[in-house]
């Protein structure tokens, strides 16, 4: 484990360096997202152009990647986000992270900018910068195959960008395999700006295990724990789509941008229908017993032969409900295009449905759309916009710039209809009836997003004593209230960085179910795999350190409390549909402010959301940037 290295690559000069990772840094940041945040805070020049040579692109495997820890296959990537101007951070499963570790590296730091397309080949302790001129212009599937052919090794695993990343679409993403995507914050555009088409890895060195015999016993025990959760079994069967039925019925999704919160007659978007008609098999990421990814093929019709994996729950919204679409094949086609071109479905769905609503309201006209009639529930509109965004034509060229730049272009009166926070669009969910979810997208360090904290367990209204036992403080067991939500969200905000630093997937952790992996399990896994000992409390403080460092990155780029608020519509328009409990709900400004105060207080930040001096000292962040690595 201790042999794993950081590789530094300067694409301007072609220089490659390698460094060991001292245990002291592991003890502060573990690896993955945690150590990436340290690297970004130390290497990104404040105020730099995210698409310029001064931005730094980091990629990493989690501390447990490639080891027998359940579902620990995730890679993390980061940079200053070209979408938000704040921290860019996204992660994904697949096979890349384990392969990177087997090749001897845990982190890569890519600086500068190449003048011709290149890709990196990481192989058994070495990093090579290789020509990618012949691959540039190809989609993500072709790219990965061309790299395998170029290297003459079918076992090579790559992450790469598609045409969206090459064309600097600000929400282009980073992809590996058939569908795995580090989807958010536009990391694909950063790669594109550096002319970095892909990073390929192949390793035969392996990852050392501190206690191999115990490791297998523990692996078995933790797999059993994950599989005992009923929520896991549902996801094994249907993937994350399983969330759709309840959230649609309850009225927790966005329909036609943000006009209503339930899509009626949406039976064909339900996982059962998908499973019966399109799913052809199940796929899993490295070492994962859950196999939530489903392979599908469209057997007939205009999209016949469309083959990919997925779609995820979020894409059901991005190509479905947000456009008022009820046909699963539209979603499957959209999902496929996103996979091939390499863009974030969430951002696309949000931006495109915003444009349609603007057109409907007369805020943009045929001059802006180039004569294209933007209509709800219309495949022509959706796929024309996909094409325009990816290849930067017409209205698509404006949407490709992401929320804030597009608003500037289309006029301040369009802002009200845009569903972004910190410059990143929200997923297709409607949080007006669930204050904890609403706070989470507000405070999220990477912009409107559910994966920074969303406490899905809040929806189950578990008994108060169960919640107290889990959180260590009193939580009101009612998802519709504001009380104690600031604390609850804080708990998840400091917990998620740990799973992301270990490389472990949300699906196997307590996000969905309290019966899954938590801090205690992580301490056992870390000890057996790496030999390092931590207490659950130490891990919690480390999560706070990582999250606070992200906050510091954002503050350095000008963020403060003002950036933690929701789009105006959340406070103004009550929810028109859904279950009784969720109907007629809007966010109360005063109570939202109280949640923010409570949340900041838990983090040790002042009223403006700036970490206090004593907080930084306690977290040993007061000397950052310290330039150790």
């Amino acid at each position: 484990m201790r042999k794993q290295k950081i590789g530094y690559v300067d694409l301007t000069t072609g220089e490659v360096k390698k460094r060991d990772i001292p245990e002291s840094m592991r003890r502060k940041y573990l690896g993955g997202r945690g150590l990436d945040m340290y690297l970004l805070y130390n290497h990104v020049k404040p105020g730099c152009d995210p698409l310029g040579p001064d931005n730094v692109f980091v990629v990493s495997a989690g501390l447990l990647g490639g080891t027998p820890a359940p579902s620990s296959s995730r890679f993390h990537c980061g940079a200053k986000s070209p979408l938000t101007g704040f921290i860019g951070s996204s992660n994904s499963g697949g096979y890349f992270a384990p392969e990177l570790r087997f090749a001897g590296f845990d982190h890569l730091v890519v600086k500068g900018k190449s003048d011709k397309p290149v890709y990196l080949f990481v192989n058994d302790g070495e990093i090579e910068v290789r020509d990618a001129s012949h691959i540039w212009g190809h989609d993500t599937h072709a790219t990965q195959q061309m790299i395998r052919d170029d290297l003459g090794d079918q076992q090579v695993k790559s992450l790469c960008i598609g045409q969206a990343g090459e064309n600097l679409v600000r929400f282009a993403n980073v992809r590996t395999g058939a569908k795995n995507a580090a989807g958010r914050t536009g990391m694909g555009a950063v790669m594109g700006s550096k002319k970095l088409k892909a990073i390929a890895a192949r390793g035969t060195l392996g990852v050392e295990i501190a206690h191999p015999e115990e490791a297998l016993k523990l692996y078995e025990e933790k797999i059993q724990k994950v599989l005992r959760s009923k929520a896991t079994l549902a996801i094994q069967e249907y993937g994350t789509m399983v969330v759709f039925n309840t959230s649609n019925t309850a009225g927790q999704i966005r329909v036609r941008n943000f006009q209503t919160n339930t899509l009626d007659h949406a039976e064909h978007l339900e996982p059962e229908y998908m499973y019966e008609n399109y799913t052809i098999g199940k796929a899993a990421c490295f070492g994962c017993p859950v196999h939530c990814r489903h392979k599908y093929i469209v057997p007939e019709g205009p999209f016949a032969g469309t083959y990919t994996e997925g779609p995820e729950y979020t894409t059901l919204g991005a190509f479905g409900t947000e456009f008022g679409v009820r046909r699963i094949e539209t979603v499957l086609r959209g999902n496929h295009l996103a996979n091939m071109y390499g863009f974030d479905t969430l951002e696309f769905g949000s931006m495109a449905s915003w444009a349609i609503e603007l057109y409907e309201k007369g805020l943009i006209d045929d001059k802006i759309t180039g004569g294209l009639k933007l209509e709800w529930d219309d495949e022509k509109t959706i796929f024309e916009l996909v094409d325009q965004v990816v290849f930067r034509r017409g209205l698509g060229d404006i949407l490709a710039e992401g929320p804030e730049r597009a608003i500037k272009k289309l006029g301040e009166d369009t802002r009200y209809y845009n569903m972004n926070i910190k410059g990143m669009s929200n997923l297709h969910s409607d949080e007006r009836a669930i204050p904890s979810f609403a706070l989470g997208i507000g405070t999220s360090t990477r912009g409107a997003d559910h994966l920074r904290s969303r406490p899905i367990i809040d929806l189950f209204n578990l008994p108060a004593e169960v919640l107290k036992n889990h959180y260590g403080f009193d939580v009101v067991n009612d998802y519709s209230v504001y009380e104690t939500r600031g604390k609850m969200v804080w708990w998840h905000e400091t917990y998620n960085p740990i799973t992301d630093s270990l490389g472990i997937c949300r699906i196997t952790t307590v996000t969905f179910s309290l019966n899954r992996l938590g801090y205690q399990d992580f301490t056992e896994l870390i000890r057996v795999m790496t030999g390092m000992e931590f207490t659950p409390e130490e891990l919690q403080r480390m999560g706070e350190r990582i999250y606070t460092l992200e906050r510091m990155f954002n503050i350095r780029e000008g963020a403060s409390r003002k950036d933690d608020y929701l789009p105006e519509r959340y406070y103004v328009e009550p929810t028109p549909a859904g279950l009784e409990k969720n109907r007629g709900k809007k966010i109360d400004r005063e109570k939202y402010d109280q949640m923010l105060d409570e949340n900041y207080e838990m983090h040790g930040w002042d009223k403006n959301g700036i970490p206090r001096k004593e907080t930084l000292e306690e977290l040993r962040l007061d000397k950052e940037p310290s330039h150790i690595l």
Partner: protein
Amino acid sequence: MQKMILVDPTKCTGCRTCELVCSVKNEGIANPARARVRIVRFDPVVFEVPMFCQQCVSAPCLAICPAKAISRDKESGVVDVNYDLCIGCKVCMLVCPFGAMSFDPVGKKIFKCDQCGGDPICVKFCETKALQYVDVTAVSSRKSWEGAQKFSELMQKFARELAPAG
């Protein structure tokens, strides 16, 4: 009784847990390159096939070994390598039709699946049961049953479609 590891590629999710646990158990390191099983993956139209030693009856590796280092256990039928005799010439790697003979660059020796001495760890950890450890003589009857089941489902569907309305 001879047993074999029966592979059903249609159930394989490609998670490579078999490679992982095999290397940890046999080599004490997480390293698929040193595992006795290998998932061959066809990307991006994903189809995965677990590949490993079939313990062939007429084993090319055994036949060609110039040092007579490869032999078969009479009872279990498992083909194994005697490292006292192995000269590391790698000819067995060249003749194996399944790519089941591998060379370990660290330990500098040939290695292959020995079914973990009768309790294969890959089978134990295979979540979807794409790998099963079964009695050799039971394999054909099991396959017959599965094939017949598919046939019977087809016939039933056919019969329903042909049945007169009402």
